[in-house]
């Protein structure tokens, strides 16, 4: 399903006051940050979007897809679910290999056409995941022994190439062990809309706009300035730098040089 835009029609905050901004429109390819203190309503907003709420949730918000109320089938049939969700917890519980797991997911999603094609998708997912994490995932690796970074990377790549959900919700994903910015770029490249709950300045400032939550309602919408985006870029560079050093340490190398100059993402090494 092609999603051109999402509209959030205002609901009520915890004090039963109408949210200030009546209508917020988000376009294809946009990244939206959701910021605010604990209990300010960030997760509830993600929940409303995930449910494609139409006035039935606590907040009474309405979520429109392409300007219309979402079809009921979009809410109930998981194989056409348009919302992908990356949560804080991404543990696995199935005792199987990465390859078999991805295969099962491809079949579940109704995407299994031929053996060769499925194999190609699986290889693509593992390949892309390896670009995001510094710790190599092999197709025969058991799911249960994947590190946190590997799991997150695998799930991002899975969202991009298996689920292909056009809307992605990310709830305070940890950036330890993954190049989070590259991960988000991978998702955005595929024309997705991303909602991102985060306290991380690198991520919050690398959005198109951010919702400031307060008392359960959307209290403000800040359009990210060019300056903020630049700062985010710098933070992202620092993050990748730390990731590199981390891998060097793992390789048994010594760290004797401190890199200070900010090189643009993608040109280093």
């Amino acid at each position, binding site marked *: 399903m092609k999603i051109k835009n999402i509209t959030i029609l205002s609901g009520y905050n915890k004090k039963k006051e109408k949210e200030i901004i009546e209508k917020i429109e988000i376009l294809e390819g946009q990244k939206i940050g959701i910021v605010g203190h604990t209990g300010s309503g960030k997760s509830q907003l993600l929940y409303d979007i995930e449910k494609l709420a139409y006035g039935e949730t606590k907040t009474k918000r309405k979520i429109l897809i392409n300007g219309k109320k979402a079809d009921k089938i979009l809410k109930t049939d*998981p*194989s056409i679910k348009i919302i992908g969700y990356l*949560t804080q917890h991404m*543990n*696995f519980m199935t005792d199987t290999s990465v390859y078999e797991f991805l295969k099962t997911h491809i079949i*579940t999603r109704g995407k299994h056409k031929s053996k060769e094609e499925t194999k190609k998708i699986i290889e693509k997912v593992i390949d892309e995941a390896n670009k995001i994490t510094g710790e190599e995932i092999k197709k025969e690796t058991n799911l249960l022994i994947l590190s946190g970074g590997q799991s997150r990377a695998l799930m991002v790549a899975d*969202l991009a190439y298996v689920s292909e959900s056009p809307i992605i919700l990310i709830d305070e994903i940890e950036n330890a062990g993954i190049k989070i910015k590259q991960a988000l770029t991978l998702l955005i490249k595929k024309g997705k809309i991303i909602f991102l709950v985060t306290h991380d300045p690198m991520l919050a400032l690398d959005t198109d706009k951010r919702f400031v939550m307060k008392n359960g309602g959307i209290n403000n919408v800040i359009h990210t300035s060019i300056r903020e985006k630049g700062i985010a870029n710098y933070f992202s560079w620092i993050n990748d730098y730390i990731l590199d050093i981390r891998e060097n340490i793992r390789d048994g190398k010594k760290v004797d040089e401190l890199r200070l100059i900010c090189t643009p993402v993608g040109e280093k090494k």
Partner: protein
Amino acid sequence: MKIVIFGGTPGSGKTSIIKFIIQELKDLKIHYVKFDVLSTDDDLLIKQKFGVSTENKISGEVCPDHYAALEIPKIIEKHKDKDLIIIETAGLCLRCSPYVNEGLAVNVLNILAGKPSGYGPLLTDADVIIVSKGDLISQAEREIFRSKILEVNKNGLIIDGNGLTGEGAIDVSERIKKIPEVKKTLTLKNSMPTAICGYCYGNKILDSKETLNRYNRGKELKARVPNLNCGKCGFKSCNEFIRAVLDKKINEDRCPYIKK
């Protein structure tokens, strides 16, 4: 009056989710019953928090699901004036699950607890399956789990639930609003397993001769007690009474109706 029966393994989040559902349905006159084996205070906590009428049923020596089946008609009889009776079973055995053919059978299924194919009628006979603890694993695995549920229960309505945030409670509540009122005879969706050995009469010695002996004596007593579970002997059920007699804890005269 409507009836909803919740089943699910211990720790799956039944009580937490029920609390959110009661909150959603606060306009209804609700009676909540909690079945458990040893002890519970969930009924008191729910009464305190929501002011609805509650009670607990402790099964003790009897299988909690059989006990629930024995008690459900009495509960219904006593609470005819209520809009909705919510029954939470102890959820120990995947085999029995005392769902009835009317109302709604809800299974709270802990996604971390194993493969859907390993569950019996508890899952396969449920009308609604609330998948709990899904927030702890990846969405891909949730989707796979869901398709595995559909392999064993095609008609169930699958809802993602969360006992901490109340996710899913609205959907279950909407479903509850749509079920019809209870009519006359309730039937179990699934018959319970045969219980006809000496162990059912409280034998503890692992020996076939011993258990046969116990069974014969138990059967003999069973034919003489009224099987009404009237409670006059001080036990919840005639079976419990029989066990106590066989254990020589009491004399059979304790039953006022026993045939000599």
